[in-house]
């Protein structure tokens, strides 16, 4: 699955425990939500906030992804692939019940996916698993997924929050209102939702933890979890200090101060799966890979990381986030570029771009002035400030235009830009296929020899080892051709009260709320 989201809007924060003294008898945890979810129905939303809240607390998936990138049993205890790789059959565990007491069986799984496939519902989740054709419940505990073509990323996608199983009975009973009162099998069940203010959840007393990576296999520790909607960064920062929050995902700007405070602990998601990079429209002069290389060499990634994320990010040379299983560091080191403005200037000079040392360089009377587009976001602004400065240092002037995603992304299909600044989050190497299969997601990518073949391999090869060959090959080709300029992967940062235990993000940056407890709880 591929998703991208500005940082400010990103992420329901998840996190840990405050024990307000008065509430010592109730074990309650309070976490921050950066924005109010649009609804709490994972089958009807592609919003990261929605799927994080629903996926963390309310529903469970067939599988989860281990830190090694391999799918692990959850609601499904095992699965098999058909020979033509067009069918996947899951064997469910028995005896799992939804919060409303109904059974979570093969019919429920089929119902959930059917509701996504149902054209009348026009689920926005549907296009992400476009290759899925139908789902059959073979028996109460066996469910088979049928695809139109081999679809390797499915095991990663189905581990994502959007594919947790909802109660068919509740869905049928509540209809369109279901999104306000979700029912799943997760460790917490829905109590109330004051829109814009808070969502209250309570412990699912019959909960049984099926994930192997969880600490607590029984009922969750906390009686109650409250998710407070706090869009303003400063407010969240203050609420942590007044212990009104047990934990909060924060922009990295304010983290530094709390990192020095012994009352808090900073949890950094090292598995971050996003990548910020520059893309090209491949219009002259950027149809020449050496021109693109000059740009890549000009950029001081360490400085960008500091400016944009106060250091809570890593500079990346490869065309995929290091957090995605399959990232090939060797390829990145061999074919990527570092920061070498002198070489960048030399390349420009070789290409005929010369200048006086002040102002832009020029070639054949054309000055090196280009248009750089980006989505609007304070963090992106800062990265762009450094990028603009770095490029100016080698004599390339870029004018920056930022706009909200809804304007920015479609605008890339039209002319008028030379470079854009992108940030994507994805859990699977399939992202390379989606972005870079000819003609590319913005219809501007030239055909690079061998790239589409490698990308086809990524899409259709279910065997992990054979698939890795294609992944590495695609990364190498992208770097060799300077198709993009990779910049960095930032880490989501959550500040938790020091007493909050077991706050460990999994491969998808989701915590297991059943594990969470304050140190002082009995």
């Amino acid at each position, binding site marked *: *699955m*591929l*998703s*991208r*989201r500005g940082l400010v809007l990103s992420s329901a924060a998840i996190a840990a425990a405050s024990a307000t003294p008065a509430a010592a008898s109730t074990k309650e945890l309070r976490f921050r939500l950066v924005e*109010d979810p*649009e*609804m709490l*129905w994972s089958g*009807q*939303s*592609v919003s990261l906030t929605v799927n994080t809240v629903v996926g963390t607390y309310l529903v469970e998936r067939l599988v989860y992804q281990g830190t090694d990138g391999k799918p692990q049993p959850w609601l499904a205890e095992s699965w098999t692939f058909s020979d033509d790789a067009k069918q996947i059959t899951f064997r469910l565990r028995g005896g799992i019940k939804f919060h409303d007491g109904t059974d979570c069986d093969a019919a429920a799984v089929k119902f959930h996916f059917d509701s996504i496939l149902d*054209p*009348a519902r*026009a689920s*926005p989740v*549907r*296009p*992400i698993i*476009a*290759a899925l054709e139908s789902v059959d419940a073979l028996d109460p505990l066996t469910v088979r997924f049928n695809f139109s073509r081999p679809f390797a990323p499915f095991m990663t996608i189905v581990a994502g929050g959007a594919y947790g199983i909802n109660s068919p009975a509740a869905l049928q009973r509540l209809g*369109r*209102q279901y*999104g*306000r009162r979700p029912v799943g099998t997760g460790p917490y069940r829905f109590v109330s939702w*004051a*829109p*814009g*203010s*808070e969502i209250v959840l309570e412990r699912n007393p019959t909960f049984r933890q099926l994930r192997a990576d969880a600490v607590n296999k029984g009922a969750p520790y906390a009686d109650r979890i409250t998710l*407070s*909607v*706090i*869009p*303003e960064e*400063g*407010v969240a920062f*203050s*609420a942590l200090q*007044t212990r*009104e*929050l047990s934990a909060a995902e924060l922009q990295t700007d304010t983290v530094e101060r709390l990192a020095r405070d012994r009352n808090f602990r900073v949890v950094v998601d090292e598995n971050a799966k996003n990548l910020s990079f520059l893309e090209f429209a491949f219009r002259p002069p950027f149809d020449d890979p050496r021109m693109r290389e000059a740009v890549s060499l000009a950029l001081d990634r360490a400085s960008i990381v500091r400016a944009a994320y106060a250091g809570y990010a890593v500079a990346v040379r490869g065309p995929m986030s290091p957090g995605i299983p399959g990232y090939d560091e060797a390829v990145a080191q061999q074919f990527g570029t570092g920061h070498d403005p002198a070489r960048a200037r030399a390349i420009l000079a070789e290409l005929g771009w010369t200048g006086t040392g002040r102002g832009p360089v020029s070639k054949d009377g054309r000055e090196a002035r280009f248009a750089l587009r980006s989505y609007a976001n304070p963090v992106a602004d800062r990265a762009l400030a450094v990028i603009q400065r770095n490029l100016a240092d080698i004599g390339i002037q870029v004018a920056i235009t930022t706009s*909200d*995603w*809804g*304007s920015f*992304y*479609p*605008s890339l299909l039209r002319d008028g830009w030379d470079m854009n600044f992108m940030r*994507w989050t994805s859990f699977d190497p399939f992202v390379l*296929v*989606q*972005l870079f*299969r000819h003609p590319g*997601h913005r219809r501007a990518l030239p055909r690079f020899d061998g790239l589409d073949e490698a990308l086809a391999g990524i899409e259709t090869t279910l065997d992990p080892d054979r698939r890795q060959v294609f992944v590495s090959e695609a990364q190498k080709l992208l770097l060799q051709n300077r198709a993009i300029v990779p910049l960095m992967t930032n880490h989501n940062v959550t500040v938790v009260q020091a007493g909050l235990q077991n706050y460990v993000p999994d491969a998808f940056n989701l915590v297991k709320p059943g594990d969470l407890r304050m140190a002082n709880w009995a």
Partner: protein
Amino acid sequence: MGGYIARRILLVIPVVIGILLLTFMVRAVIPTDAVTAMYEGQITDQEAEATTALIRAKFHLDRPWYIQFGYYVRDVARGDLGESVRLRRPVSEEIGYRYLNTLWLTLSALAIGIGIGVPAGIIAAARKDTWMDVTAMTVGLLGISMPAFFFGLLLILVFAVWLQIVPVVPRGGAALLLPALTLGLIEAAPISRLARSGMIEMLRRDHIRAARARGMSEAAVIMRHALPGTLLGILTVVGLQFGQLLGGAFIIEVIFGWRGIGELAVKAIQWRDFALTQAIILVSAGSYVAINLAIDILYVWIDPRVDYTRA
């Protein structure tokens, strides 16, 4: 008078139609739709894109804008504000509580604004050119020079963080406190200036001099003869302000996370969720127009001089 009111109501119709048409013309030229906006680029492969057509078809987004307008008018006529592409539920549901929230915020803010502004303005006018006048007007001047979002942040800092009078993360009614205070103090500034200048002008009128000449005490002159007229003057501006605020004080709502119409408007546009946008326009323009109407009618009712045969 009945005719006048009927005529005022008739004038509302072209305004509302104009507003809706304007919205749809905007829709015709905007380069993206709710589906594109929703995915924030999550769909990239060609086969998947074909399936988003389903969503477009369900919400008629695949039709030309004027057909969509037709659908919209038909639905509104049936009392149906449509379904939000993004929220996947009836727009009326979302608008309903949002509108109430904005109404509460607006009413509290105006109550604070009037409660502070009118007495301050009247005292300033009655004690014109004294230190009280200068102080009130200086504070008012500072008030109208303060950017709302800056002021809002300062209030959070002062009340929630330093003084800790209110919780940083307020719940329920307490959540109204800071946004209402911010907005109220900002509104108080122009109201006080208006009250002052209205009062000063009123105190200069012939009938005030006549009242003094017949031995009315200064308090009676102000309260009985000058205040009603002044308030009537303020009423128009406060009413307009009320109408505007019902369209959402979006900055304040965004800063304080107040789930009102304004905050929703920002999102609805970013989402390109037109059913939602139109409903917002409908209710806020409707409120604006209705409040103007109410004021005009109130005017006729309070001020016997208003010649209601003319618009």
